[in-house]
């Protein structure tokens, strides 16, 4: 058991003709949906029986572990939803299922996300991209000159 027991769900939206990264406004749309999807999943990921777990053991560990990342390139945007919960150092979220149901809960929940939430994400994102293509760009004033080196800060606490 290791990474295979982690949940990792992805959806990709292609913008083959865009030839640029998403704008701030488009990223904002994507991120609003991303957060909504995580909250939706968390809302579904409750009501567990915790069969076999000691009464004093932590609850809702995998519930809290739902997270997401967004990766955008010139031609596509990839939404990654994942769960890397650990129990005694071992991944397990991919094996979670409801009592009396052999279907993995991550499969059930993701099917619901695809049906109910992804169409709205794609619709809103396409609308934002279409709007950006017809709207003149804004100039953004930056302080100082750009340098190639990464700016670092450090401290000790």
């Amino acid at each position: 058991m290791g990474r295979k027991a982690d949940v990792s769900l992805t959806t990709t939206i292609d913008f083959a003709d865009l030839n640029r990264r998403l704008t701030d406004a488009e990223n904002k749309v994507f991120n609003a949906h991303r957060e909504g999807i995580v909250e939706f999943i968390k809302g579904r990921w409750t009501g567990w029986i915790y069969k076999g777990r000691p009464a004093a053991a932590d609850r809702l560990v995998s519930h809290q572990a739902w997270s997401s990342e967004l990766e955008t390139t010139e031609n596509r945007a990839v939404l990654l939803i994942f769960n890397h919960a650990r129990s005694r150092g071992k991944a397990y979220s991919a094996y979670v299922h409801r009592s009396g149901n052999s279907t993995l809960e991550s499969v059930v929940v993701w099917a619901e996300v695809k049906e109910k939430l992804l169409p709205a994400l794609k619709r809103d994102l396409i609308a934002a991209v279409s709007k950006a293509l017809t709207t003149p760009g804004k100039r953004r004033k930056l302080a100082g000159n750009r340098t190639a080196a990464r700016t670092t800060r450090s401290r000790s606490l």
Partner: protein
Amino acid sequence: MAGVRDETRLESIERYIVRKHGKPRQLTLRERNVLDRWVTDIIRVIRTEWPVDTSASRDAWSFTTRGGRDWIGFILENSRDYAEFVHYAGDDTLLIDSLVPDTIGDFAPGLLAALKAEIDRTERDIERNQKRGGRGLLDLLQVA
């Protein structure tokens, strides 16, 4: 490669571990989880307070935590090549010199206290484990 890298080393925690354990050691999984949760909250606040019209740089904040025996702390990074120049409208103060360190400072007391409490728990568990004939820290490193 531009962008921002902000390192916070928790030397007070490293000294605390030496005091409690007798020598430096790495963080256990439970202690790392405590650190991760607090740094997650720090990043969340930075993202919330970051200017909305630069959402690409706002969303580019990420973090790494380290729990090695010779360096305990966390690193915040932002890969956007203008992130280091972002400031609030009408105020030239760079947010990497205000919002970021201020947020870390706000969370520092709670983070350090929570981590020390977890270290105390670990040290008690190590002692109990050794009394039962266990390997002490080695048996507890990966316990969640």
